[in-house]
Structures are given as C-alpha cells and as structure tokens.
C-alpha cells in the first residue's frame, strides 16, 4: 500500500478551506454562511490530523477535539442568534442587515 503524501492532505485541506471562504463570501443566508465557516474549521481539522500524524505529535489531535467542541458551541449560539433575528424580522438575509453602517 502506497502512502498518500502529506502534501496531498494539506492541499485538500487548503481546497476545502478555500471553498469555505468563498462560501462565506457569496452566500446570503447566514445558515449557509455558517455552514461554510464550519467547512473551513473542518479543513483546519484535516490539516491538524494530517500534521499530527506526520509529526507524530498528539497536540494536533487534541486540538481537533477542541475545535470540534467549540464548533458545536458555535452552532448553538449561532442558531440562537439567527432564530432570534428571524422572530423579529421574518427574514434572515444578511444583505438586509445594514442598519449599522458608515
């Protein structure tokens, strides 16, 4: 079995991260944007795991768990905010949210 070079993992991770970034930029629904951010976080997780195994160090793995936990917490908070906004506005389009500007 041939091992897949580390750089490939990293390239995949970078691609995922880029996709997430682009998602944040082009979508108008905060839910989707949030999902894109999750994608970015998971790209990071992939990188961590890869590097952890490559470096033979546990730090990366631990980090992944922390990131996962934090991401879960973020989901909770994020959804709560989105719901709260939906309650008053009946609309969660981020492009409609520009009361605050200038």
């Amino acid at each position, binding site marked *: 079995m041939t091992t897949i070079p580390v750089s490939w993992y*990293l390239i995949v*991770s970078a691609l995922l*991260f880029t996709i*997430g970034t682009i998602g*944040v930029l082009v979508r108008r629904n*905060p839910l989707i*944007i*949030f999902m894109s*951010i999750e994608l*970015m*976080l998971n*790209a*990071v997780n992939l*990188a*961590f795991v890869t*590097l952890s195994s*490559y*470096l*033979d*160090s*546990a*730090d*990366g793995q*631990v*980090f992944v768990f*922390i*990131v996962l936990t*934090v991401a879960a*917490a*973020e989901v909770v*908070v*994020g959804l*709560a*905010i*989105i719901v*709260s*906004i939906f*309650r*008053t*506005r009946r609309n969660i389009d*981020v492009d409609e*949210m*520009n*009361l*605050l*500007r*200038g």
Partner: protein
Amino acid sequence: MSFTYIASAADWARIAPELVLAGVALLILLVDLLLPQTGAVPRERGAANFFVLPLLALLGVLGALAATIVLFVVGDGQRAFFGLVGSDWGSLYAYLAILSAAGLGIIFSPAYLKRLKLVHQGEYYALFLAATLGMMLLAAATSFMTLFLGLETLSLALYILCGFVTRRQSSQEAGMKYFLLSSFASAFLLYGVALIYGATGTTRFGARGTSAFPGVLQFLQVHPQSTTLLLIGIGLLTVGFAFKVSAIPFQMWTPDVYEGAPAPVTAFMSVGTKAAALVAFARVFAVVLAPVAADWQAVVWVLAVLTMVGGNLLALVQRNAKRLLAYSSVAHAGYLLIGVVVGGATGLAAILFYLLCYAFLNAGAFGALSALERLDNSGCDREDLRGLWFRRPWLAGFLAFFLLGLAGFPPMAGFAAKYYLFFAALQGGHPELLLIGVLTSVLGMYYYLRLIAAMFMEPAREAQEEALEVSLALAVAGAGASAGVAPRVSGPLGRAASTRTGGAGTGTAGAAVAVKTAAQATTKRAPAAQQAPETREQATEEGALAGSSLSWTTWLGLGLAALGALALGTVLPFWLVDLALKAAGTL
C-alpha cells in the same frame, strides 16, 4: 506518543482568578433560579434582580481581582497544566485591566437593564463573567490550544451579550455580524495555528527565557530560512489577532458591533477583548515568534500605521458617539500595535500599562453613554448630545473627562499611557512610529473635542421643536397616558429652555437640524406606535432621561472610572509602570 500528567494543587492555585469567575458565573445561574420571578414584584422591577445578581457578579470580579493580587504577591509565576496556562505577572497585569473593565461594565449594567426593561439578568451576568473568563484565558494562554479556547469562550459569550437587547434590531444585527465575522476570522487564525504546528511540531510556547518557543528555535536550526509554511502560518495568525484587536483592514465589524451592542457590554468588550487579544498577540509575536521578528515585523508595522491613521481618519465624520468611540478604539488599537512592533520589555510593558489606563477611560466613556442610550439605540447622536451640559451637567462633565483622557490630555491616564508607549517606540528604534502616533493623535483630538463642543458649547435643540417632538410622541401614546406623563416631561424641558444660551448665530442652524431629527424621530417611532403601552414607556423613559436622576450605580461606576483614570495618570504610574516593566519580562 503518550504522556502522563497529573494536575497538582499548585496548578489549580495558579488559575485561581479564572476559577473564581467560573464558580461565580455558575452560582449566578443558580441564584437566578431562586430569585422571585413573579407576583407582586415583577422580574423587571425587582430589587433582587437589580441588586443581588449584579452584586454577586461584582463580588465575583472582586474575588478574581483579589485572587490576582494574591497571585502577584505569593504566586510562583509558573505555568499551570503542563504549560498550557500562564500565571506570570504579565498575565496577571492583563487580568487587572480585564477585570477593571468587567467590574465597571457590571456596575453600569443594572441601571441600564432596568431602564431598558431587559430581563434574563442571570444569563446576562453569567455570560459577562464567562466572557471575562475567556479573556483572561486568552491573555494567559501559553499554548495555541488555550489561546483558541479563551478566544472562543470570550467570543461566544459576547455574541450573545451583543445581541442581548432582543427588541432592538440593531442589537441583533450586531450580534449576528460579530458572530459571523468573528468565526470567519477564527478560522483563519486556526488555519495559521495548524500551519505553524506543521512547521514547528508543537502548539505550546515553552518557558520564557530558556527557549522562547522550542518549536521555532528547533525549526530555525533545521531550516536556516523560514519556509513558506511557517510564514503563511504567521500571516494567518496575524489576521486572527488583527481581527480581534480590530486593526485595519480587519476592523470593519468594530463600529457596527460597538454601536449595536448595549452600552455596558460595549464598555466591557471594547476594553476586555482588546486587552486579552493584545496581550496574546504580543506574547505570540513579540515573545514566541521573536526569533523570526524580521519576518512579521513589517506586516505588523503596516497594520499599526494603517490602524492609527485610518482609525482616526474614519472617526472624524462620525456623528454617533458610540460609533465614534468605536473608531477611536480602532485608533487606540493602532497605538497599541506600536508596542507589538517594538517588542522587548519596554514595548510590552507599554502595552500593559496602556491597556490598564485605557480600561478606565473607555469603560467610563461608554458607561456615560449607557446612561443616555435609549431602547431604539438612539440618544447618542451628536444632535442628541447637544447642550447636554445644560441639561445634565455632571454626566456631561464625566463624559468630557473621559473623552479628554482618551484624547491624551494630562493629567488623565491616557496621557501617561501614550507617553510611555511613544517612549517605548523611540527606545525600540522606531522614531517614525512615534511621529506618526503623535500626529494622528492630533486628528483624534479633533473628534473628541468636537463631541465635547456639541455637549458644552452648542445649544440644545430648540424648545419648540423638542416640545413638538414630545407632543407627537405623546399624541401617539394616547390621551390617557399623556395626562400622567406631561408634567414629568415638561419640567425638565422647561429647565432646558430656560438654561439655553443665546447663541443666535447657531440657533437657526440648530433649529434646521432639529426639525430634521424631530422628523426622523417620529418616523422611527411610527412602527412602535402600534403598541401603545411600549410607546408610553418610551415617553416616560425619555422623561426620566431628561431629568438628572441617574441611578446611583451609574454614578458609582463613573466615579470609579474617573478616579481610576485620574489616579493612573497622576499618582500610580509611580509604581504601575515599574510593575508593568517587570510583568512584561515574564510574558
């Protein structure tokens, strides 16, 4: 790939301030459940809610403060939990700033929450303490893991606090924006951490003095030149920190969030977040990555300059006081970044001292605004502040005091802080930063003074216009309500009219503006008119605002902040600077 580590009692002692906070936060949630919720004393009026919870929170902060001081005196300054969290003097010094801001924010809260009829105070104070905890963790982090953990803790709590005024769209919007952008930036930070981890093989910073960052040093031994991996990692890390300290061009969220968030929260977060993030920034870059300073210094230099110039420039034309202060905090971030660029003990000490001074001034300024803010987030425009001195002289005086302090006038703390920072710039071999900082301070002076001028030197809106506006509001509120409200409104108005200055020249211009704002005010209120009781409340709230009946807690907060700002500027530098210098050595 295995390790054994057993947390010792010393480890726990080293994070005593955090523990106190965490404990009290949980306690608050519990107590909140026990407080009377209904019945004769409704939740939004009850003394229990407006006294017990803030007191508890304040006690928590004071406890943490006490713990911090104890650690200063008797602590060993070692890192806890296998080098994850520091308890060094640098972190403790940062705690002082963060806890001061938190304490002031808490003191400003009850009056504000009461006026805006905000319930859910248990959550509010618990989150407040949680955010404080996160900040402290971030400031004390000696590993990227703790760093990330602290960052997210504070962010998550603040997302909610920013959007806490659920009846205010701008508050929700602030929460949302903060949430999305902050997560976005965290992702970059995290990616940077991953890359640095890849390059160096560790996420821990290593002990100070012996080997700044074992990873970096090892890496440098292997690779004589930095690889792209490390550099990009550093770059992405820069982005993450720059976002948190709101350096240009990553500052865009700052004004929106600061403006939309409740003023006490802004008072707290504008200082606390900045303090925590900057200390972490300084620790990571100026200490851990110091061996590769040549690589990142230029970037941070550009950020600092951009932020100093841009922050001050953008603030020039702001007409909303909260927003203006937000931009001013961007500008202050720029000054603080000087310390990062300069590095060394003096640079870091300058950051620490500056943060402490800034905590009192900025928290005080936002605290003063918290007494003015209305439910619909109005009340802080320059038009609203016009002639404030004639209506509420002491409040105006306090606000002016803090603004002057922020502008860098002695004898307030702002000057001493700036002086030390600029001194550090020169000593660190960056005279150009000194010059830029000095010159941009002039820009800063303009907008602070302009705001003060509005409060002190321009007459308030013309009496008739104001009366018209109020009568419009009253008309919508309904005849029944107006009978009870009218005397309360007309009293202060009459006073305002009688104390108005001549100022015939500006009078006409003022009148024109006033007509406009009155029109805006009525249109803003139109949707609210559907709910008559709420409007009535708003009218009474305005009546209460116009009078000089501030809650004693607000006075306490303003007084403490002013005292702190003054003491820091005059008496305390005597040893606080020395302390900062010693503390910086331990970062």
